[in-house]
């Protein structure tokens, strides 16, 4: 016999009430934890994918759209800009590197990006098979694209205009797969890379009759790209460069750090609502535990009195009650945390749009300690009044009252 076995014996006596309270707590804990895991992974991923890129330069319009299109490949770009203006930036001593991107077609929902090999180096991606692009219409697949499409070096495919899977394919100008990249956990896994000239070639081949061939006569000045990723050469660039670009050129400069933070703030309002709802659930379970314990105490006052008669101190009674509710809280906590991590791991199955956030399932976030404290705190809070009544119990009167 010990305090733990005693607590377990009592929990077994009221299985239904016990189960209900444990489940209620578990649901609250799971909801809060799931929000923590998914938003945490989202933030981490957004920061990871934007890491190292100080500025995104593109057409004037919404800076957020520029970031979404240029870094996360999650939106259509605001428009195109002349390549010559972008290349001009390379002469600025404040700029260390400029990687131009021409966002063109897509293949089975995966973006085809015309760029320079510097982009592969920026994401630290290694070749898993084949080689990088060298001739027009050479394509290198990100690891996820290769896995989803089943294409390998030697295969050919035709792109579809825009980001979606629909639309008429550019069958006349097929791409030829020359390489596949190893997984990086970054956005590059979901991209198909090619030379910028390939993107131009596809569009030239497809008429653009109204524009006429004169517009794209092969001169670099006339060529356009969608965005350029810029890395600073010195910290001073952060102060001077964005303003200079926005003021002096037809380009717009957007800071990924700033726009990402702004996006997460907006997003945070939504998750706060979910968090609040989950807190309500935890509160309800604490209340349920409180009612159950208080009710049980009325039935148990004779047991508590006889325990005192058998030599138990007041502190021992309090310890038994506390241990009991703590055990229930721990059980609900463990159940809630486990199901949150399992749900996060399988998030792609019930929320396909969030599939890339499944990576958060295997990490333990510091905020989860807050959830642990919350659940245990709820258990202890629910015990305060019953424990106080047990402490104050009039043993002689209780033994005599039958």
């Amino acid at each position, binding site marked *: *016999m*010990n305090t733990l076995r005693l607590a377990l014996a009592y929990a077994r006596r009221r299985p239904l009430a016990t189960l209900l309270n444990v489940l209620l707590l578990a649901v609250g804990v799971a909801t809060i934890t799931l929000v923590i895991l998914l938003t945490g992974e989202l933030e981490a991923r957004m920061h990871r994918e934007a890491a190292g890129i100080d500025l995104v330069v593109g057409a004037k319009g919404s800076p957020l759209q520029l970031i979404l299109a240029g870094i996360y490949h999650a939106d259509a770009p605001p428009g195109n800009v002349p390549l010559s203006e972008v290349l001009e930036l390379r002469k600025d001593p404040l700029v260390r590197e400029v990687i131009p991107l021409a966002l063109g077609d897509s293949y089975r929902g995966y973006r085809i990006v015309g760029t320079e090999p510097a982009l592969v180096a920026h994401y630290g991606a290694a070749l898993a098979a084949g080689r990088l692009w060298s001739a027009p219409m050479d394509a290198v697949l990100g690891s996820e694209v290769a896995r989803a499409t089943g294409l390998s070096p030697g295969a050919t495919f035709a792109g579809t205009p825009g980001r979606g899977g629909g639309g008429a394919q550019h069958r006349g100008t097929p791409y030829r797969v020359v390489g596949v990249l190893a997984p990086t956990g970054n956005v590059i896994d979901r991209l198909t890379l090619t030379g910028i000239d390939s993107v131009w070639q596809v569009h030239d081949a497809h008429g653009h009759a109204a524009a006429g061939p004169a517009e794209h006569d092969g001169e670099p000045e006339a060529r356009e790209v969608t965005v350029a990723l810029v890395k600073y050469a010195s910290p001073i660039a952060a102060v001077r460069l964005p303003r200079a670009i926005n003021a002096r050129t037809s380009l717009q400069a957007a800071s990924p750090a700033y726009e990402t933070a702004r996006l997460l703030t907006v997003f945070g309002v939504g998750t706060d609502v979910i968090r609040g709802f989950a807190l309500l659930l935890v509160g309800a379970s604490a209340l349920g535990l409180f009612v159950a314990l208080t009710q049980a105490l009325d039935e148990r006052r004779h*047991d508590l009195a006889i325990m005192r008669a*058998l*030599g*138990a101190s*007041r502190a021992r009674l309090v310890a038994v009650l506390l241990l009991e509710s703590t055990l229930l809280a721990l059980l609900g906590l463990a159940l809630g945390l486990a199901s949150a991590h399992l749900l996060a791991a399988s998030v792609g199955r019930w929320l396909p749009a969030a599939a890339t956030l499944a990576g958060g399932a295997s990490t333990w976030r510091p905020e989860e300690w807050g959830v642990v404290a919350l659940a245990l705190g709820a258990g202890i809070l629910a015990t305060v009044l019953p424990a106080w009544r047990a402490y104050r119990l009039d043993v*002689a009167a209780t*033994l005599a009252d039958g």
Partner: protein
Amino acid sequence: MFVLTGVAQRYGRTPAVRIDAWRAQPGEHWLLAGDSGSGKTTLLHILAGLTTPTEGSVVVGGTDLATLAGSARDRWRGRSVGLVPQRLHLVAALDVRSNLLLAQFLAGLPQDRARVDELLAALGVGDLALRYPRQLSQGQAQRVAVARAVVNRPALVLADEPTASLDDSHAAATLRLLRQQAEATGATLVVASHDARVRPLLPHTRMLAQTPR
């Protein structure tokens, strides 16, 4: 074994019990007799250190209970006093064996399963060790409660109305058991009862007068 001197317990202005002097020697078996409401239960609780009397001194086994407070008193009670309450109060969540182990655990004594099973067998309920209290008859429950009271070999065994709901033969058997068990450990026994059948079964009697109100 215990000495009560000028003990009185009052609830508000109502006196519950008054006893000028009562001295019991170690190993003596006493009947505490008196009409209903004369204060028998109150006096047992005073002897067990569960109630601190409003007046007088209580010395049990050489210990003045007034000097024991808080958990020290609980500890003393667990090791020195075995109580069979009138309503028995077996712990319903625990089986019979665990009820006895609980008594050892709460007294801070080593848990001796052999002692528990031996005692249950000696009281004729050895085969009920794994039953829960609600699965016992009144007589069986009574025996378990007696076993729980003596399992820690206390120096003082107190039983409150142990024959109240029993027929003649069971009443006599219960008294015999209590005396046997008290004898086995040399404990002093006090049986509080207003049951006339108990009177001839115990060698010493202390009458409580109806307190004036």
